[in-house]
């Protein structure tokens, strides 16, 4: 019931702004509907962290890991809506976009959130696949939201690459269905029901499940942005409106990864070992750390810098997931930390873009002086992204490095090197960006100073949650909850 209500509330978010006439009413309706989604996500997910058993029926399945993802989606879509109200309000005021475009924006945001939640709560792998493809289809027009040449290019690349990837994932799904039905274990819809497959996983043919997993990893991995299937990600994230970039990076990538982790449990069950999938995770994880490191070092665009950083962090999460139970703890902490950090960073980047009208480093300078609140928040978030305490990423990276040094020292060295390059790259680019004058003088005078607004409050919510999460991890309450989450993905 709660899950159905949650999904319906997303459709309300999609449709209600359409019936509103003035901009204030559209924003008001979007805010209320989005708040409804957030409250319902709390109501649906919170009990699972405090002892409630997993919810399961033919269509929905919600365990502690899915509940964590629902919470992240619920919270980030809420702060993204608050940020969007500020962002779109400014763009309507300057004539960049029109009222129908704002309605269209919230329509696709609602559908996007709905399809992400469907991906997470589906008990059926077939419906999960449909929902994951729907996340691409609902966000493509958001990536192409502006009538800029680059937007069309980014959206086209996004549509073709992600749809092709997800279609290849369908082959994995067919093979899984065949594995379950040909051996007489399951039939019809139940042959792609996750909970049913889980019960028969040890009897599934390992050879078929391995081939299926390769297709799933390549297919869904395209959506996660794993190297070498990542080509769409920097373009789409840099061209979409900033609140959308925040949602793409913060929650969509995790939703796709969720699909891979669900499949992994089945394959591990079939092989009676997690060694084979762990090796694949380690290879894709390492690749996804080193390639972005090179691009971060030479980056000229701050939204692309954040996008490449997302690839790197998804790589770290996948790498951790290949390091056994300790690695799984690190990956869960990293999923939460990165989702909250990166979305907030894209929201801050949106404020900078609104003021400077450029995403190029050389055209922007003295952000700290021009936008003191945004600058301070941006700097704090960047430092936390670089895993400086009290960032939760400090804990996750410490765990993953210490574990990988023991298990795979060569991979650990490569990842450490990549992290060092990325740290240097970020500091090299961000310090002048915040404190030094722009290399290329702006075409028009840039207004100095800003008032604290709702977008700052939304970003501050992220920061408070991040610190609270770090503190929570140090309390005795953390280990039983983390244990429940890890059990759900192993």
């Amino acid at each position, binding site marked *: 019931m709660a899950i159905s209500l949650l999904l319906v509330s997303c459709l309300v978010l999609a449709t209600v702004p359409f019936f509103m006439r003035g901009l204030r009413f559209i924003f008001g309706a979007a805010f209320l509907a989005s708040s409804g989604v957030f409250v319902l996500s709390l109501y649906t997910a919170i009990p699972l962290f405090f002892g409630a058993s997993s919810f399961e029926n033919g269509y929905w399945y919600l365990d502690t890991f899915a509940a964590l993802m629902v919470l992240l989606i619920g919270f980030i879509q809420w702060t993204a809506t608050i940020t969007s109200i500020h962002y779109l309000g400014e763009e309507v005021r300057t004539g960049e976009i029109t009222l129908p475009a704002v309605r269209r924006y919230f329509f696709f945001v609602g559908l996007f959130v709905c399809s992400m939640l469907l991906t997470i709560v589906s008990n*059926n792998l*077939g*419906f999960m*696949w*449909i929902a994951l*493809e*729907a996340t691409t*289809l609902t966000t*493509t*027009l958001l990536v*192409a939201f502006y*009538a800029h*040449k*680059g937007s*069309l*290019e*980014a*959206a*086209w*690349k996004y*549509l*073709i690459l992600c*749809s*092709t990837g997800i*279609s*290849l994932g*369908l*082959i994995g799904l*067919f*093979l899984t*269905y*065949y594995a379950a*039905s040909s051996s007489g274990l399951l039939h*019809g*819809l139940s*042959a*792609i029901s996750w909970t049913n497959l889980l019960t028969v996983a040890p009897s599934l043919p390992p050879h*078929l499940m391995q*081939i299926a997993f390769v297709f799933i990893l390549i297919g869904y991995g395209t959506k996660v942005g794993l190297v070498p299937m990542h080509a769409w990600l*920097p*373009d789409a994230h*840099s*061209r979409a409106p900033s609140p959308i970039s925040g949602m793409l990076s913060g929650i969509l990538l995790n939703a796709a990864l969720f699909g891979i982790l669900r499949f992994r449990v089945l394959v591990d069950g079939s092989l009676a070992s997690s060694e084979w999938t762990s090796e694949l995770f380690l290879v894709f994880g390492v690749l996804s750390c080193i390639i972005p490191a090179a*691009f971060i070092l*030479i*980056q*000229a665009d701050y939204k*692309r810098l954040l996008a490449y950083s997302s690839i790197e962090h998804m790589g770290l999460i996948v790498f951790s997931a290949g390091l056994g139970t300790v690695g799984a703890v690190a990956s869960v902490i990293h999923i939460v930390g990165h989702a909250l950090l990166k979305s907030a960073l894209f929201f801050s980047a949106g404020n900078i873009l609104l003021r400077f009208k450029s995403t190029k480093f050389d055209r922007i300078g003295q952000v700290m002086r021009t936008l003191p609140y945004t600058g301070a928040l941006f700097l704090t978030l960047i430092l936390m992204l670089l895993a400086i305490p009290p960032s939760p990423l400090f804990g996750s990276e410490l765990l993953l490095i210490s574990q990988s040094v023991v298990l795979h020292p060569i991979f650990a060295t490569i990842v450490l090197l990549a992290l060092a390059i990325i740290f240097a790259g970020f500091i090299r680019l961000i310090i002048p960006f915040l404190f030094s004058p722009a290399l290329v003088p702006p075409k028009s005078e840039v207004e100095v100073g800003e008032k604290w607004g709702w977008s700052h409050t939304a970003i501050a919510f992220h920061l408070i949650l991040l610190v609270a999460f770090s503190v929570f991890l140090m309390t005795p309450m953390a280990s039983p909850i983390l244990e429940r989450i890890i059990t759900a993905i192993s």
Partner: protein
Amino acid sequence: MTPIAIAMTVFAGGMFFLAFLMSSRMRLGSLVTAFRVQSALLALLAIAAAFVTGEFQLFIVAGLIVLIKVWFIPSFLLRAARVSGASERLQSYARPATLSFVAACLAIVALVGARGLLPVGADYFVLAASFGIVLVGLLMLVSRKDMFGEGIGFFVMENGIFTFGLALTHGMPFLFEIGSFFDLLAFFILITVFTHRAQDENASVATDDLRTLTD
């Protein structure tokens, strides 16, 4: 082999042959016609699978293939090209002869790959043909230099995956089939929106004009 198994092999073989021809076709009209015929063969394949399994829902799936892939997508693709004033002549990175040669190599890869990966007996040729169609679809996706060519490449690849599903599972659960058709339709609508917009912005649907975002 039973007559139905022979018919399925012939339909799948025909689909691969059409994919092979499409890999080097450079006119939108002939490409769309070939896709239409290929989709009709896919519908026949679904009907044959329905006879094998006795599943009535596969007839509905065949009907949906005819409705969406034989009629709707080809007709509206041509209409979108006409309305936006896009050129009938399509572009590619390689010469037609080179593309045909690569497609022939991919056929060999598919035959060997199907044997190595999935030794499941009677449907081997259908599986090999489906692999071949997927690979040629991917070839079209990477070799074409215009939105229509890439879009049709995607649809060819999707036909290959559908053929693979039919050969392997003799039809997935009906609700899932309906959902995947819905996604396909949404994908097609987005393709037409973007080709129209590209024609408006660049007076061309060439993807060469979409190469500004680099590092």
